[in-house]
């Protein structure tokens, strides 16, 4: 690895971590979700400060250059993370769908209930009037 590449890696990992911690400070991210980014930026930092680890792994896998190994490694980690995100989004989508459907059905049920209550109320009212024996009830029925 060249010195510049290492420097880029170091700056990048510090940047990631700094940005992430700032978002936590502003209470914009859930701690559970930030754990991945924390571990990821620590990993980048370790690899940039101790490139021997990456060199050793590169030789072990018989790859051409250390930077190739690091690219492959990062791509793989991000792929796994992306898969996990897709999973999460699917679940969120499903929950949102369920939530909206339940809300709609419950609203419908409540309206129906309110309507039937209203109907029985007007019925008893008119019979009250009728039982009054008086003009009011008849008048109302005629109308």
């Amino acid at each position: 690895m060249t010195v510049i590449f290492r420097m880029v890696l170091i700056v990048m990992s510090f940047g990631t971590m700094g940005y992430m911690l700032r978002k936590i400070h502003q209470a914009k991210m859930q701690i559970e979700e930030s754990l991945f980014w924390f571990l990821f930026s620590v990993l980048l930092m370790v690899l940039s400060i101790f490139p021997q680890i990456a060199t050793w792994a590169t030789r072990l896998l018989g790859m051409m250059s250390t930077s190739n190994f690091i690219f492959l490694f990062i791509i793989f980690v991000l792929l796994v993370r992306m898969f996990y995100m897709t999973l999460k989004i699917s679940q969120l989508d499903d929950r949102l769908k369920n939530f909206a459907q339940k809300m709609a059905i419950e609203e419908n049920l409540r309206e129906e209930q309110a309507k039937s209550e209203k109907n029985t109320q007007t019925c008893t009212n008119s019979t009250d009037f009728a039982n009054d024996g008086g003009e009011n009830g008849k008048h109302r029925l005629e109308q």
Partner: protein
Amino acid sequence: MKSLIIIPAFNEEMNIEKVVKSLRENCPNHDYIVVNDGSSDHTADICRKNGFPLLNLPVNLGLAGAFQAGMKYAYIKDYDCAIQFDADGQHLAEYIDDLIEEMKTGKDIVIGSRFVTEKKPWSARMLGSRVISAAIFLTTGQRIKDPTSGMRLYNRSMIREFALNLNFGPEPDTVSHLVKRGAKVSEVQVQMQDRMEGESYLNFAKSITYMLRMTISILIIQNFRK
């Protein structure tokens, strides 16, 4: 003190009735509310049939979301304190008044702890508890003997924090954060039972991830919070 017992319940049809009835018998002076966390079984039906006060979440939010719903209710209804109480029968209603007495001495959070006077066993299960205790001690300087106990009493100012903010799950890392911000936390000895029926949420692999998550959160990430 006007107190609310919050009982988050997810698929607890086998336990919820027994738990709430014992609660009613042992502490008739306290209000309580069951938060049904989108259960797929008959938890909500059982609550309705028995006339238990119920917050019925239409989707599953997880423990933190369900408990926060209870805290929001407590905040809106202006309760003086709220207690987190498990629906699986682990927590015993007899001890609730002990916790409330302790809160009257000016505490913000009172934890129903298994290890104040009793010794913590050296089992694999308690290893996680020890690691989390150590992490809290390192960052706050306070010894909390039973950080993973789910039986905690919160006062009015804590209810506000839990009701309105992100990252206030009912977990040890939140307790650690609050201690650091000056909350007074103490522990009261309680007994706990093994859950009555059904399967516990935590298996071995999950316990390990839970412990790691809590430790990293307490040791590092909590330091950057406001």
